[in-house]
């Protein structure tokens, strides 16, 4: 990293720390949502970007995390902080199961993407049907606002938790680019058969990365459930969440450290812009579809013209480096 980049990062870090202290509550929440999107986007990016295992169903991990901690908390009286690591472990286990089944069967590319979608759908239907998730009614977490209870009375603390999560995810992504594990993942992404010929245990590496990604995404699920104190099958396992994670990473730059963060900034910006446009132009009463239309167009343009995402506009060589020694 050049010293200029280090400077920029330090300034960005300090600005993000000071931000909630100087802006109104509404914008604090917007910032929280942005860092949260960057975090779960990074969890997608670890598997989908660095390792090239495109998933259309990452909500399966998000939902498993959200439901695991919520069930432990609501039905068994666990403290949510204690339930959090269990939720992550559950995400890793589901990642292991999906990876072992899919990669053992040799699924790649589009087929892997579609099977993850089907897994998320199976979990959505199950969560809708089995008694211990309270079915389609969803699960309410009783309000008991104490930080020791993972519930915060103001907007600022969730902001800092989301910011910390985002920092951790950036650190994990940075470690990946520095490690042999990360180099092996890139080799697998670029050419799986060549990676195997080099002696990489492709199957084992892909299983590992999906477990890591699943655990991270599940951590996001718990955070979400504790923030909104409510979870239901469509929020937890619906395709909207899967697509959001994919968009954030793809738009910002799949396989780059800062891609998901930049994607989250861009998408949050678009969201606020359309919200503003809707307030000014009364004909645009539906904000959500409008911003999603813009996202969809961005995804098309990025896939077609800018495969390294918005990151590549910054002119630095992307960290999607050519595979080093493996």
């Amino acid at each position, binding site marked *: 990293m050049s010293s200029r980049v280090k400077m920029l990062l330090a300034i960005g870090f300090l600005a993000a720390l000071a931000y909630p202290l100087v802006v109104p509550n509404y914008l604090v929440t917007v910032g929280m949502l942005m860092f949260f999107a960057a975090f779960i986007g990074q969890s997608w990016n670890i598997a989908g970007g660095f390792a090239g295992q495109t998933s259309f169903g990452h909500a399966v991990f998000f939902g498993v995390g959200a439901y695991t901690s919520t069930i432990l908390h609501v039905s068994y009286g666990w403290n949510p902080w204690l339930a959090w690591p269990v939720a992550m472990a559950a995400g890793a286990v589901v990642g292991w199961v999906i990876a072992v089944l899919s990669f053992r069967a040799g699924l790649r590319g589009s087929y892997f993407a579609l099977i993850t979608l089907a897994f998320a759908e199976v979990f959505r*239907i199950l969560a809708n*049907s089995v008694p211990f998730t309270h079915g389609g009614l969803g699960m309410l977490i009783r309000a008991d606002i104490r930080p020791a209870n993972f519930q915060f009375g103001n907007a600022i603390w969730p902001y800092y938790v989301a910011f910390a999560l985002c920092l951790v995810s950036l650190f994990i992504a940075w470690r990946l680019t520095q490690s042999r594990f990360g180099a092996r993942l890139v080799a697998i992404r670029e050419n799986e058969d060549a990676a195997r010929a080099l002696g990489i245990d492709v199957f084992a590496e892909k299983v590992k990365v999906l477990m890591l990604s699943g655990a991270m995404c599940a951590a996001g699920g718990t955070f979400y459930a504790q923030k909104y104190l409510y979870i239901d099958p469509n929020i937890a396992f619906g*395709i909207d969440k899967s697509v959001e994670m994919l968009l954030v990473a793809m738009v910002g730059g799949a396989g780059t450290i800062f891609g998901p963060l930049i994607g989250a900034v861009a998408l949050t910006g678009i969201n606020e812009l359309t919200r503003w446009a809707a307030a000014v132009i009364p004909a645009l009463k539906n904000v959500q579809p409008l911003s999603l239309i813009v996202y969809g167009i961005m995804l098309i343009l990025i896939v077609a013209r800018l495969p390294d995402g918005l990151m590549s506009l910054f002119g630095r060589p992307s960290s999607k480096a050519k595979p080093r020694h493996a």
Partner: protein
Amino acid sequence: MFDPQILIAGVLNGLLAGGIYVLVAVGLTLIYGVLHIINFAHGSLLMLAMYAVFFLWRLSGIDPYLALPIVVAGSFVFGYLLYRGLIGRLSHGRDENILLLTLGVSIVIDNAALLFFGGDTQTVEVPYAGDAIEIGAAFLPIPKLISFGAALLICLVLGLFMARTDTGKAIRAVARERQGARLAGIDVEKIFAISYGIGIACLGAAACLLMPTFYVTPQSGYAFVLVAFTTVVLGGMGSFVGAAIGGFLIGVTESLGGLLLGEQLGQIGISLIFILILLFKPTGLFGSKA
């Protein structure tokens, strides 16, 4: 346990519903077989065609069945232009990229529908919607019988088109050997666009046959996309016979799943079949290659 009469009724109703799935899946499998792309926008384009049927009925009073030629032609043109203008130009490289591209198209279509048509459930009201004939315990709605027959007829016509006409032969040539077809003087890009157009035209026909008994919302596309993929994967990607048999099997699975497991859990059958086929028999029942 269930009365066998009820089970038979369930199977018959499943077969009738399967006729539509055949039509949807034939379009998807044609696009895959010729272009080697997985068209994730398939469900969204079906939803769009269903809205076209709805608005033709609402604004001009055109009966869904009479709208069939208009919607099929319109869908073909829309598909042809979508390929020429967007998918064909931008789809290069990895197959996941093309999947992501068609995902982008489906996000735009779904949300444009939500923006312009609103989120309400829309139905076409036709006087014959409730007509049915009874065979034993089976209660077979006339519109479903019509859609079943029409779907099979359309598949037959498409089969003849592929077998007999020059365009059909060119499509098969491109599907089998792209380079060879090019050397033989076939305009491959044009054949791609025509194939994509035909695939979408099948959706237009399916939309006309669905609307008398079904409803449409902006989410309908997503509801159909996994069903369509399951049908195609079950039959074997690129296989027409497979798509046909897959469609009927999926229809019956859905009907019996709902009967045996209830409305909520019954939907799980389709996703499970999809997963199991991909894991254990990725070539499907009739596919030649994975």
